[in-house]
């Protein structure tokens, strides 16, 4: 079932700047609400979910609203570098996000990523139980964006 989303002008502008559309975000929310593969931030009542759309892994941070099946979008971001699997968990570095399914706090760690056939590691957050993993917003929009550009440039 298609979920409805609401977003402010500021968030809409942010999406545009990051090459994402409202439809991309709606797809992420739809998919995440169907699979329940998401992280939850209890103190802010926010969810973090992701979906691969074309060559981009798109992430959305959103919250339920008072209306059934309507979600407020807080932010969205993406990266082209493709996530493979977590290779190292730092179990004592406990994060505020928790796995919605496993009810376990996420931990930071190192995740293998692949781009242009090149596998390299990046910092991420992972559920220690089911290994569901995410890249945080600032790492995706700063570190990985530059890394993708450098990989493209150096590979050329």
């Amino acid at each position, binding site marked *: 079932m298609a979920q409805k989303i609401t977003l402010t002008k500021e968030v809409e502008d942010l999406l545009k700047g990051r090459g994402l559309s409202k439809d991309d975000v709606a797809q992420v929310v739809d998919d995440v609400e169907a699979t329940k593969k998401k992280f939850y931030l209890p103190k802010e009542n926010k969810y973090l979910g992701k979906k691969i759309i074309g060559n981009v892994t798109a992430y959305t941070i959103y919250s339920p609203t008072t209306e059934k099946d309507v979600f407020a979008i807080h932010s969205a971001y993406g990266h082209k570098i493709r996530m493979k699997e977590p290779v190292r968990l730092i179990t004592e570095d406990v994060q505020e996000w928790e796995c919605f399914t496993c009810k376990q706090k996420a931990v930071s760690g190192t995740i293998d990523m692949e781009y242009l056939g090149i596998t*390299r590691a990046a910092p991420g957050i992972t559920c220690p139980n089911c290994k569901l993993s995410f890249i945080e917003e*600032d790492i995706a929009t700063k570190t990985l964006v530059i890394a993708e550009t450098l990989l493209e440039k150096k590979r050329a």
Partner: protein
Amino acid sequence: MSVEELFPKTDMTWHEKATKRFAGPFVDVPYDRIDIDPIILAHAAVACGYGIRDFYEKPELGIAAVAYINELYDALPVTHWFYSNVWLPELGATVKCTKTLPYIVQEPRPIQNPEDVDKLKVPDVDEVAKGFTFSLYARAYDYVKKNLPHMFVPIHYAFCLYAMAAELVGPEKFIMWTIKQPKLCHKLLKKVADTSANGAIALANRYGFAMMVMGGVLANSTVLRPQQIKEFAIDYHRYLVRKALKGGAGPQLWYHLCGDHAGDYQLWKDAYITPFTVMHIGYHGREVFPADLLVKEFGNLATVMPSVDTKLLYFGPPSAVYEQSKKQLLPLKEAKRGAVLGATCEVPPNAPPSSILAMLKAARDHGKYV
């Protein structure tokens, strides 16, 4: 003569090849052979007829000399300039160069007693950008950006956070604090890490990105127990990198673990790793850290950088440098995320060029990919 007139222009044919070689480990496109990076700093100035002091007090000259010498040694296609006691004047220290040493903290140290730690103010990004350390970096990088743009990589050098804190207090006293007053050490380390992160962010703000060089230098297995290295060094490097990445620094990270890391090297697997991370370890006990062990432990996480002993580079003979280089090069073909052959620390300024040329010869003879 201006600095621009001191050195011949870069041979761009060499530079193109060196760039392909340099990029190889990071993008899985092996070019011809494994690169060498003997961490050339004041050695470049000395090799060009200047003094050690010239290198540190004249960053434009220093970084231009490294660029020129890198080309002559067929080493890196990028240039750099840094020293160890960075970001300390911003925390109240007075530093001074001598004829043979880079900036050294002068007595009296800014932290004399525990109360001084509480009083210490962390400069924000704007304040760091107006400070002593940043102004030297900006002179070096502005020069390269203008005159040698093909060799430009802005580097934020964090050195060893534990050693930086120790310099503010006095190394012996700080090591005693580590044992007897750990909370006080944590308080100071947090302030040092925040200052250094602000330095990284200031550089990223000015140049768009900033490669981060960090070290476990005083925090080594000879001085601290492994658990102490984790608590007083690795955890703060994680904090520093996280904050700096959030502020736009990185994505390149180079961990330069100088000294003996026989007891703690495994713990550095918990350091922050980005797609462009180099793990460089100097010693295992009194011997150079074996390249095969480095490949086995870190080859699936990062680009590895084993070392040739700087004592050997200084004393020679070239045949011994060649043999050790060969021994360290042979396991590197198994490094899945690439490798560079380095030195255990900065090549001594007065090391004979024949030592570095012996490393180069070994790389040409035994570091070929095919």
